């Protein structure tokens, strides 16, 4: 499948005054001056031996720097490797990334894995194949053109003449990747482009110990954190008292944790300790009820900048529409809680983590612990599904701090559900103001918008100070800086998808990044797109209505991009949009976007039913991710993204009072359950000769837009704030 990873941008800090000592090497480092440009992450990680190795027993290992976060990337990369090497897929094993051994591919995010890692792996494997063939040709005197490779065995005109396995020890890959490599043409592919089953799924179906949560090291202790009762609270006193199972307390500044031999004892001890801790608390959060007002007001003190501008304002305008849209903070809400295992040996720290960016985490751990990077090793292990910058990095520092009390002993630290839903970074609340002008025929003349939000990235490894949660709670704390936005070239953060894809002569898009951050924010699937796509599509629906046109026809007449047109038409066809009939209490809507305006396309038709609340009953999803390495995997990502979008649209909102996040359990932060999940029909347009684009994030935002359109169709009202609950629908903004 195509880059089906999720979460955030391959962003670089805009405000970073100087380069951090590490964690950035693949991004800002790159090849020596004058070296030829290599595809994807290979450009900055140029040694072939970093990417793959052959073994005498007939196996190939690939070692990508991108990590499995539930999106199937290891399967995709294995397919690409098997294809280019001409070996059976079963011979290929993908190893989880280890920093500092694996190629530094930054963060697995932004739907960029197949682009960054897949194109690198394809080139590296094609190059490796070429090098081996050269050597065999030299040794046998048979010209390269006359040698074929069949499941790793080299054949000349008269039969087998060698294999990868026989040459495995010859160190042939200890070299820089050549600029030229003969990558297979699309028509010759047999493994890439097919829906091979996910390689990691069997373990998960049989309950095998595959997640970092399952790691059991000899002598390992279990740790839990005792969180402050509210944000910004300082630990002032801790009463002495007995703890179960010889549990021991780790305290530094306002970081408080407990270690015990069993999980049960650790949890019991943490509960007792919490009752003995005293904290100085204060109000640090805005009024939730007035969130849009707070955003507006904080924006006056924020950093305003231009996102896109083109053309000149129209001289005459027939109709002007002015609208505002709002969304609340959103939580990752993974089913598993964040977990890490840490072990100190002398001055060296080893961490097992489900982080999206092992190198980035390594850099921030070193900064927070005030030790050199070289002393830190981060080993990736899978976690529960990851949809962006969640608590995975934070918990790694928690584990490292707890483990420092017991040198030589591995410590497993697991977050509670309350920590996961209450303390992980959130996707920021946003407000967008749009003004659109049309002529007398309804054609768009001008589009102006202002997108207000906290930054959408506080990823580790990118700033001089660590961004990990506990870093601000240490005895010598690090400051918490307001989150940043990746540059528009990387897809942007808050303004992601804020520039309409439609043909509009005059555009002026601006954004304001807030410089105060009462609630820690970072990247979650789609970033600003979850609000921007819906707000644009809502205005399009309203303009279509004003012009007396069908929403589909109105969009089509403002589109020039043939692939956008194709997905819209495909979705409309799947849903029988033209033949839809009106039913009391039911409605249909549509939404379309090209993710980041540079990634995959998705168009969605939603059918909703309005009862005591809104239910989404069906979704028809059309997509285009260019070349699909694993079509079923890509479809799975589109389906998952669409259902995630439906959940965000209908239910999700982080709740808080002036001191704490109160939606820290599943009752207070509900997500869609089995009986509420819509039926989803997905159709992907395969374009084998087009570059791969990520599938993970494309469908989510258009789904929200489509549901909003369906609500209008059913009820005659246009939602102005997420989630589309009876309360927000009644209140407007």
């Amino acid at each position: 499948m195509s880059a089906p990873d999720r979460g955030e941008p391959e962003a670089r800090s805009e405000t970073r005054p100087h380069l951090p000592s590490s964690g950035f090497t693949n991004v800002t480092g790159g090849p020596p001056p004058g070296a030829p440009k290599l595809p994807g992450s290979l450009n900055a990680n140029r040694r072939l031996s970093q990417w793959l190795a052959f073994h005498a027993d007939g196996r190939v290992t690939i070692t990508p720097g991108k990590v499995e976060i539930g999106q199937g990337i290891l399967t995709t990369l294995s397919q690409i490797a098997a294809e280019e090497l001409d070996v059976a897929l079963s011979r290929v094993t993908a190893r989880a990334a280890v920093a500092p051994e694996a190629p530094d591919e930054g963060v697995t995010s932004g739907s960029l894995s197949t682009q960054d890692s897949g194109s690198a792996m394809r080139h590296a494997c094609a190059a490796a194949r070429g090098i081996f063939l050269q050597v065999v040709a030299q040794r046998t005197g048979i010209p390269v053109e006359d040698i074929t490779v069949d499941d790793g065995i080299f054949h000349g005109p008269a039969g087998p003449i060698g294999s990868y396995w026989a040459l495995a020890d010859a160190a042939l890959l200890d070299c820089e990747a050549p600029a030229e490599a003969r990558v297979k043409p699309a028509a010759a592919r047999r493994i890439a482009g097919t829906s091979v089953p996910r390689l990691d799924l069997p373990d998960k179906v049989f309950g095998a110990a595959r997640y970092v949560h399952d790691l059991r090291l000899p002598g390992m202790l279990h740790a839990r954190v005792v969180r402050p009762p509210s944000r910004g609270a300082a630990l002032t006193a801790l009463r002495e008292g007995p703890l179960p199972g010889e549990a021991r307390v780790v305290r530094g500044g306002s970081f408080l944790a407990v270690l015990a031999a069993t999980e049960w004892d650790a949890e019991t001890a943490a509960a007792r300790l919490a009752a003995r801790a005293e904290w100085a608390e204060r109000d640090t959060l805005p009024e939730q009820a007035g969130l849009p007002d707070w955003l507006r007001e904080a924006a006056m003190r924020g950093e305003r900048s231009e996102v896109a501008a083109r053309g000149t304002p129209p001289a005459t305008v027939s109709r002007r529409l002015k609208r505002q849209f709002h969304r609340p903070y959103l939580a990752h809400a993974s089913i598993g809680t964040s977990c890490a295992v840490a072990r100190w040996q002398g001055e060296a720290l080893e961490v097992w983590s489900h982080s999206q960016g092992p190198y980035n985490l390594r850099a921030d751990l070193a900064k927070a612990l005030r030790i050199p990077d070289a002393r830190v090793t981060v080993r990736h292990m899978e976690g529960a599904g990851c949809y962006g910058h969640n608590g995975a990095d934070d918990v790694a520092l928690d584990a490292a701090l707890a483990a420092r009390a017991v040198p030589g002993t591995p410590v497993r630290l697991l977050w509670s559900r309350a920590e996961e839903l209450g303390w992980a970074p959130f996707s920021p609340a946003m407000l967008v103001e749009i003004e659109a002008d049309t002529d007398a025929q309804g054609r768009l003349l001008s589009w102006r918008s202002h997108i207000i939000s906290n930054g959408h990235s506080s990823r580790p490894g990118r700033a001089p100070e660590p961004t990990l949660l506990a870093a601000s709670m240490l005895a010598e704390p690090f400051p918490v800086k307001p989150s940043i936005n990746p540059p528009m070239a990387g897809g942007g953060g808050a303004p992601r998808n804020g520039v309409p894809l439609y043909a509009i002569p005059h555009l002026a898009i601006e954004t304001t990044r807030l410089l105060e951050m009462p609630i820690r924010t970072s990247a979650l699937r789609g970033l600003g797109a979850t609000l921007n796509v819906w707000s644009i599509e809502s205005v399009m629906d309203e303009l279509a209505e004003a012009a007396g046109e069908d929403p589909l026809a109105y969009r089509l007449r403002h589109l020039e991009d043939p692939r956008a047109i194709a997905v819209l038409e495909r979705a409309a066809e799947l849903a029988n949009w033209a033949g839809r009939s009106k039913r009391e209490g039911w409605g249909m809507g549509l939404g379309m976007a090209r993710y980041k305006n540079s990634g995959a396309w998705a168009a969605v038709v939603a059918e909703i039913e309005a009862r005591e609340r809104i239910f989404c009953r069906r979704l028809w999803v059309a997509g285009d991710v260019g070349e699909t390495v694993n079509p079923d995997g890509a479809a799975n990502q589109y389906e998952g993204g669409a259902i995630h979008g439906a959940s965000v649209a209908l239910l999700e909102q982080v709740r808080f009072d002036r001191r704490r996040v109160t939606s820290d359990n599943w009752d207070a932060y509900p997500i869609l359950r089995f009986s509420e999940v819509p039926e989803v029909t997905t159709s992907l347009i395969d374009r084998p000769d087009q570059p791969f684009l990520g599938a993970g994030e494309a469908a989510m935002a258009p789904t929200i837009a489509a549901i909003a359109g369906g609500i209008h169709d059913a009820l005659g009202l246009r939602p102005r704030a997420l989630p589309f609950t009876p309360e927000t629908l009644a209140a407007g903004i």
Partner: protein
Amino acid sequence: MVQFTLNGAAVTLDIPPDTSLLHALRGPAGLSGPRFGCGTEGCGACMVLVEGVPAYACTLAASACAGKSVTTVEGLGTPDAPHPLQAAVLAEQAGQCGYCLSGILVSAAALLAKTPDPDEVAIRAALDPHLCRCGSHNRIVRAVRRAAREMAA
């Protein structure tokens, strides 16, 4: 000491009596299938079968299972001899991260044991205690239907 039957074999665990079944299973019993998600009966990641009936292992005291039979996803089948539901989840590719699957599989097994041919509504109702954040729901429902067909054949 707590004694019960775990996936068909007798086990004796030396644990404090109020230890949750989930901690007992993941700790001294050495299993990884039952997963922690919330600890408050909100997500179903920890679901196991006690005497064939789905139970939240996160809130159930291990001592309450004394003398009873407990089945986890490991007890449903193995790669060599998968339960039809496990085979069906693989056939439908009904998972992304897979973290929710251990609990869902045991609930589905209990459903099919009681109702061999459940309709879609019954399947969704039986799985409603389970959260899946990756959006694999519809594939999982298809997998349950497929398993029901296989088991009837």
